């Protein structure tokens, strides 16, 4: 394989692996808890941090992480306190983040380099720093979900009941939400703000076609996510089309085929 000879391809493959791991774990959590809309909110709110990063001249992903995590915690807090409906809070933060980002990018003198990369993803130009960040987050998420597997699963299933035997339900929710927000934001480098949500939501939905065990959904989404990302990467490399979009396209295709396959199998047996 000639393309493996290039440094950026190794980077891209590592990126794909870590993206699959982080998106698979975070994705299974948000899909099974029906929090996909929160995922969308986090993604778009983080654009505010990207704009501020450009304006003040620091790494936009750092800004995006701060914005993403802060808005996710904010939504959890508001909905726990029941001061405002959760979906309304998400809608407000979603637009507020986008508005902040647009204003600060407009105010930034000169040209905003790689803005397209943040919007649409740029797996092939992903930096070593991005890879390291995703790698560390992968390790953290794997350890966290391994150690607290049942705790997290039972809180997701029935939070009210979990509160009858545990006093740390809120702490777990905040920590998990913050980690999910980080997973979303760091994957923006892979697929871009516009497309990142599908990286988290399509693989668990593919896995759920074949299994209804939480653990198998996690493992299945990581495998499918990795396969889909690499396939998309190779296709986009050879026919020279945008990588993020190709990956999402491949994943959606796998989802459709799986659905059809499952329907066909059920009809035959």
């Amino acid at each position, binding site marked *: 394989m000639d393309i493996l000879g290039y440094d950026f391809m190794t980077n891209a493959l590592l990126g794909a692996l870590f993206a699959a791991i982080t998106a698979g774990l975070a994705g299974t959590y948000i899909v*099974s*808890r*029906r929090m996909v809309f929160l995922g969308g909110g986090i993604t778009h709110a983080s654009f505010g941090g990207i704009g501020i990063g450009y304006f003040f001249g620091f790494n936009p992903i750092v800004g995006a992480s701060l914005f993403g995590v802060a808005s996710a915690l904010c939504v959890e807090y508001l909905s726990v306190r029941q001061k405002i409906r959760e979906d309304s809070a998400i809608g407000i933060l979603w637009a507020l983040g986008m508005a902040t980002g647009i204003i600060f990018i407009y105010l930034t003198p000169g040209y905003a380099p790689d803005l397209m990369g943040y919007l649409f993803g740029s797996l092939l130009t992903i930096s070593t720093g991005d890879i390291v960040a995703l790698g560390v987050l992968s390790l953290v998420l794997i350890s966290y979900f*391994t*150690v*607290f597997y*049942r*705790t997290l*699963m*039972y809180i*997701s*299933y*029935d*939070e*009210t*009941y*979990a*509160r*009858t*035997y*545990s006093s740390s339900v809120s702490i777990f929710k905040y920590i998990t939400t913050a980690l999910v927000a980080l997973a979303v934001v760091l994957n923006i480098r892979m697929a871009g703000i516009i497309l990142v949500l599908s990286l988290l939501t399509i693989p668990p939905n593919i896995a*759920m076609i074949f*299994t*209804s*065990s*939480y653990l198998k*959904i996690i493992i299945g989404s990581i495998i499918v996510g990795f396969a889909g990302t690499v396939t998309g990467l190779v296709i986009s490399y050879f026919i020279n089309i945008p990588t993020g979009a190709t990956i999402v396209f491949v994943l959606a295709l796998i989802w459709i085929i799986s659905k059809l396959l499952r329907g066909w199998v059920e009809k035959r047996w």
Partner: protein
Amino acid sequence: MTVILEMRSLSAGYGTRNVLDNVNFKVFENDFIGVIGPNGGGKTTLLKVILGVLKPTGGELIMGDGIDKSTIGYLPQISTGDNSFPLSVLDVVLSGLMIHKSPGTRFSADEKRRAGDLLEELGLKEYSRSQLKELSGGQLQRVFLARAIIGNPRLLLLDEPGSFVDTAFEKSFHDKLKELNGKMTILMVSHDIGTISAHVKSFACVNGSLHYHPSSEITNEQLRAYRCPIQLITHGEVPHTVLKNH
């Protein structure tokens, strides 16, 4: 007799509104208390206070020796779980043991067997690998009963356990309650005469206040005196021990 729980002029409620006021109540070991009262009287609220999910707004809640969250089992009146969540019936039953678990430990084969045995006793053997969404309302309620008792609690709180019980299951359900009461104290909220009369040793009438009635016989006059204008649902034979008319 050992007191396992005591309330002293306890009040509790939501926001600024008190649902329970000035409750004085002692729960004795091995009692089987039928908690009765009108809709909105505060029965579920009482259980929430005992569980510690709702903090009293006044008075005291004193737990007896060795009684805490880990020795209380609870069957909620309404399930708040997401039934399409990817979780098997067996997993739900096992979650009743979470209080005894430190994070990261796994369930032993023995614990899984115990969960399986409980499901079998409750007539759900073939469902242990099923998803919750594949179960009927009554079957679900039995799963939650299994979850409440798998940890062998010392105090069992049942909020309307009989509401889904069909005639076929009624006998084994009653046997199960009897067997459980041999090992633990039970507080059971119910509107169902059949379930109540078959078991309870005493009554707690909850309607803003709480009146404890230390006998399994209760008359309409007493119910009125306790401000418990209730309508007990009847099915099957109505035993004369409850609601005696004079």
